[in-house]
């Protein structure tokens, strides 16, 4: 597989196999372009930050001359800063809260970066546990995205049904891990589980999802809202957006957990339309694939006392170095770079998938109309919480 540029993280460019410092700065603002200057009769329509239609706060400046969107720029209003000058365990709690819905993915990427920096490998069971969490998160996220799409279409029965299933997935996670968003689950020493993962219930949920999913794909009016909406260029897309365009592209194939995924036999899901519809197709397939993966993992309800950390704790004072951790979050590539200077964390860089997806969203909005905006937005699975985070 050839090297692909994924995105920019704090002065570096992340490629699928290495990190490279940026020599020349280029404009990577979240703005789509059409023409120059402002045509007569156009206005900047401000949507957000506080909206009823979107789950999170986000500001959009839409240049329009009525219904038709010329350009759009997205502004993350909620900018949070996370201080890195605190204990590494406390920092981990903050990393969990970069994006609550992708908490396991963030923690895994962060911990992997740390582990790569020190050149240690956690026990296989810990890695399997992390994979299980990420896949559970993926199921929940894809269900939620599908639910949001049906809700915007006023498709009340499937929407309610999907929301029911999202809540059920949350309950399965809550029962097994004690917390519905994996907060306090992962530690430097492994992860905590209170109970066996309820696979039969999870299977029922996914089965019911598949039934709903097939049902909504039968509805012409609903499909019409997605087809041709939000066409992205293939070259710079990641995650479900890339796979929707038919690319063999997934961090599960070449990221840090690729080995495990390879062993348990991961099948990539793809579609052949780079619009919101294609992204929905990919998500639909991935839900089943994630369930299959989780079924194979057979993680056990126990807390691991990992011994790998001891080596690290011994020479914690003198260590200087850095490591990159990259996983496939439900919305695409997620990477952390952790730099350590004399035993303390000196730098944390983050490339969240939403940052890349946001750029894709903006570029795909030109020529769209207002009413189709929410569908395109939801189809990317963007979370503004991880875009507006800065580690200082």
């Amino acid at each position, binding site marked *: 597989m050839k090297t692909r540029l994924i995105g920019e993280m704090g002065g570096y460019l992340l490629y699928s196999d290495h990190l490279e410092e940026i020599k020349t700065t280029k404009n990577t603002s979240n703005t789509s372009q059409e023409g120059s200057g402002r045509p007569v009769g156009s206005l900047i329509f401000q949507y957000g930050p506080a909206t009823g239609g979107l789950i999170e706060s986000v500001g959009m400046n839409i240049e329009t001359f009525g219904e038709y969107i010329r350009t759009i720029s997205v502004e993350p209003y909620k900018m949070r800063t996370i201080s890195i000058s605190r204990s590494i365990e406390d920092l981990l709690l903050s990393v969990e809260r970069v994006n609550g819905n992708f908490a396991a993915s963030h923690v895994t990427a962060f911990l992997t970066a740390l582990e790569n920096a020190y050149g240690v490998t956690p026990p296989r069971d810990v890695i399997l546990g992390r994979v299980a969490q990420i896949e559970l998160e993926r199921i929940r996220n894809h269900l939620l995205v599908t639910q949001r799409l049906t809700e*915007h*279409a*006023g498709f*009340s029965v499937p929407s309610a*049904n999907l929301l029911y299933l999202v809540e059920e997935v949350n309950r399965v996670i809550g029962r097994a891990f004690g917390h519905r968003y994996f907060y306090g689950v992962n530690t430097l020493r492994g992860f905590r589980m209170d109970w066996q993962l309820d696979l039969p219930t999870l299977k029922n949920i996914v089965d019911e999802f598949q039934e709903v999913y097939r049902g909504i794909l039968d509805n012409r009016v609903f499909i019409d*809202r997605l087809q041709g909406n939000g066409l992205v260029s293939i070259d710079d897309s990641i995650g479900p957006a890339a796979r929707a365009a038919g690319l063999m592209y997934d961090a599960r194939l070449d990221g840090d957990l690729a080995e495990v995924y390879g062993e348990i036999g991961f099948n990539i899901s793809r579609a052949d339309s780079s619009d919101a519809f294609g992204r929905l197709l990919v998500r639909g397939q991935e839900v089943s694939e994630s369930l299959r993966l989780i079924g194979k993992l057979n993680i056990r309800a126990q807390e691991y006392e990992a011994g790998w950390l001891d080596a690290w704790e011994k020479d914690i004072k003198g260590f200087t170095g850095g490591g990159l951790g990259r996983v496939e979050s439900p919305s695409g590539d997620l990477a952390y770079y952790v730099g350590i200077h004399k035993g303390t964390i000196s730098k944390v860089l983050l490339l969240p998938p939403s940052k890349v997806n946001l750029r894709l969203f903006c570029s795909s909005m030109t020529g769209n109309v*207002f009413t189709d905006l929410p569908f395109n937005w939801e189809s990317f699975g963007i979370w503004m919480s991880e875009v507006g985070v800065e580690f200082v």
Partner: protein
Amino acid sequence: MIDQMVEALIQVLGTILVAPLYSGIAEKLKGVVSLRRAQSVLQPYYDLFKLLKKETVVPSSASELFVYGPYFTFGVYVLISFVIPVVYPRPVFLTPTVDFLGGALLFSLVSFVKVLSAMDSKSNYVALGVSRAASFGFLAEATLITVFFAVAISTGTNNPYVESAYASNPSHYLALDHLLATVSFFMLWLFETGKLPVESQGLSEMGMIDDSLTYEHSGKPLALLKWGGYIKAYLLGSVWLNVFLLPWGGQVGVLGAFFDIGLMFAKWMILIAIVLVAETSLAKLRLFKIQDHLAIAFVLSVFSLLFSVI
């Protein structure tokens, strides 16, 4: 004359007071089909009651039009309820004020004042919805006028009550022009009351059409706008039931008027059932497909007109 006044009172109060109930029932059933226990059928009344007690926030540059426009539109709706057969099957007090076409023009008057009142807030979100409503208005208004005329032409009079009686004759009822007008008017009703597949009462600001007209209002004016919305849905729905779909069964006399309220309830349950199926099995159309929906309704109504004379 006293009798007519009592009958009018029953018809008008029956409209004003009962209209929210139908919305409540429809929402409840929609919720139940959506796997939920859902709200009380009396929820619209609770909402109105609360809103009438709340403060009214007025955008800083808005004028009296913003505050008192909703009162006027409510007044027009009440006037329309005197005019068209929505409960009682015979003309009541003040019925001759306008004929069917006049009624259609009164509906236009309401939307005119409603739009101005909402736009007085100077909100871009209101403008967004209004610009959509305005661009569909030409088909909606045309359909309303032609549908009303479809029956007027077959009866030779524009008096809605005569038309109701005329349509109750089975041979007239089953005529092609009547059936086309029935379908056309139902499609229009879905549009006018913001039902699927045209609009859904969702939270997304980007998809608003009718909802944008109440977006900036609060307190008493909002209560009146919502209430007016229930009355509008009731008026148009009842016309559809009494003149087009089920023109039978109305009783006369003061006691009959009370009976008619019950009869309307039964008829409305049928309408609600139809709408329930539509609302739960359809998804919302893409914006520019709404004109196709309305264009079909309009063409059907024009065909209905043509069939009635040829």
